[in-house]
């Protein structure tokens, strides 16, 4: 039991970070970033390149993932999404664009990093063993703690910094935010960069545990969408709740349902359908909080 909860928390923290980036972009621009999973994979490969190929410390790799993905996010927003949002009044246009970006990033990843599964050697060795009730390798604990610290830092940034406040204002009332002097295009770009950066950071964290490969992008995007649908799209607390709930469901499913075959995600999808039929806006469904 304790083991399931520990696994769920560890997984949930990573998931929550992914969902936060996705929900931030959605709330600011009304863009569903289908390429979010690819950004995560890209972040994993950047850390891999820096740590394994260049032989630099893990923290440098993580930092590189954050910087590369932030720049990539800013560029994708400025040169692709911003012009489309400006010219098209239909939401489908940005969805198609996001799907296109996902395929494009898949191709870029293939070109630069190849099709092989890549991982980073353990950053710390050893296993925590509490009376055989909780067994958790130290590297997982470290990665889980780092993820939680990043979540806390993100929330603090959104709540207490001038930039974070401006992004919340923009998400809640675009016109009023403009009247306060918020430059919509600049802050949309900052938001997109920040969202992409979060995806890249999770990639950099998880590449040390599970590794990354080319095929992980799409499924990760789908999981991220599940999370923000559970929690309510565009809401910080919803993304965090959705992330931890999915992490916990996966953890429970893999333990309890494993006897019946690989049906965890079948059960998750089925229960999500029922849940969304009852509560289509998700747990905390409202514009932004």
């Amino acid at each position: 039991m304790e083991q399931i909860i520990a696994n769920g928390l560890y997984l949930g923290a990573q998931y929550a970070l992914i969902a936060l980036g996705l929900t931030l972009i959605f709330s600011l621009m009304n863009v569903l970033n289908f390429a979010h999973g690819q950004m995560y994979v890209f972040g994993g490969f950047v850390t891999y390149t820096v740590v394994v190929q260049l032989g630099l410390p893990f923290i440098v790799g993580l930092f590189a993932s954050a910087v590369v993905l932030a720049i990539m996010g800013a560029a994708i927003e400025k040169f692709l999404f911003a012009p489309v949002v400006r010219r098209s009044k239909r939401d489908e246009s940005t969805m198609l664009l996001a799907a296109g970006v996902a395929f494009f990033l898949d191709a870029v990843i293939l070109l630069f990093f190849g099709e092989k599964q890549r991982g980073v050697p353990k950053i710390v060795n050893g296993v925590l063993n509490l009376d055989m009730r909780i067994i958790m390798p130290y590297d997982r604990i470290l990665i889980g703690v780092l993820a939680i610290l990043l979540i806390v830092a993100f929330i603090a940034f959104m709540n207490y910094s001038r930039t974070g406040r401006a992004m919340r204002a923009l998400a809640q009332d675009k016109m009023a935010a403009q009247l306060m002097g918020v430059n919509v295009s600049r802050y949309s770009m900052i938001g997109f960069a920040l969202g992409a950066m979060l995806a890249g950071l999770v990639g950099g964290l998880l590449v040390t545990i599970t590794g990354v490969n080319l095929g992980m992008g799409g499924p990760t995007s789908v999981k991220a969408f599940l999370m923000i649908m559970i929690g309510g799209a565009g809401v910080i607390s919803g993304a965090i709740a959705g992330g931890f709930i999915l992490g916990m469901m996966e953890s429970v499913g893999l333990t309890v349902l494993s006897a019946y075959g690989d049906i965890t995600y079948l059960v998750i999808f089925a229960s999500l359908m029922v849940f969304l039929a009852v509560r289509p806006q998700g747990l905390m469904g409202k514009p932004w909080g």
Partner: protein
Amino acid sequence: MTKILSVENVELYYDHIYALKGVSIDVAEGETVALIGANGAGKSSILRAITGLRPIKSGQINYEGQRLDGTSAAEVVRKGISMVPEGRRAFPLMSVKDNLLMGAFTRTDKAEIEQTLENVLTRFPRLRERYNQQANTMSGGEQQMMVIGRALMAKPKLLLLDEPSLGIAPKLVQDIARAIVAISRDEKVSILLVEQNSRMALSISNRAYALSTGSIALSGNSKDLMNDDRIKAAYLGGEL
């Protein structure tokens, strides 16, 4: 008195339907000017043109002797023009504090922002009571006070108020009218007030323009207009 704002022959269209056909108004320093008129007469369109939320088709807008039209909304605030938009447009999920701080978004001096915040909280004691409360849990009147306070946080030289009495309990309309008079008296600010409540608007302004379907129908001193038969018939109903 020197003019702080002049709108000259402005035309504004929504798609192909005109909202303003050649409107000219001006506001002098320290003055409170009212724009009255029926729904759809173009009052709010004038404010949207000034703040850059809507591009104008022809004419020009000058502010402090410089061309203002073509300036983006985010830049207009930096020049010293704050607007309280129609329907209040509070940031619903933010606290009163964060709403007010958003008003000072263009300013950087922390000590001066604190000073302005203190002034606003003293002017609207209700906001101090509700300081950490989420905006959408407050009444319409309280939210209206808050968004007026939010606009003052930018230390504007020109304050644009769009229908501050709309959807507010009648008792609170008086409070808001008093607050506007007090702001005009205490702060170095010119006010352009758009109101459907013509009686209120005329009673607290120096001059007024009456709009009718996109052009100025009448203008003059508010006191004179209050007694003008045409104004009485068109905007004040039979209540006088």
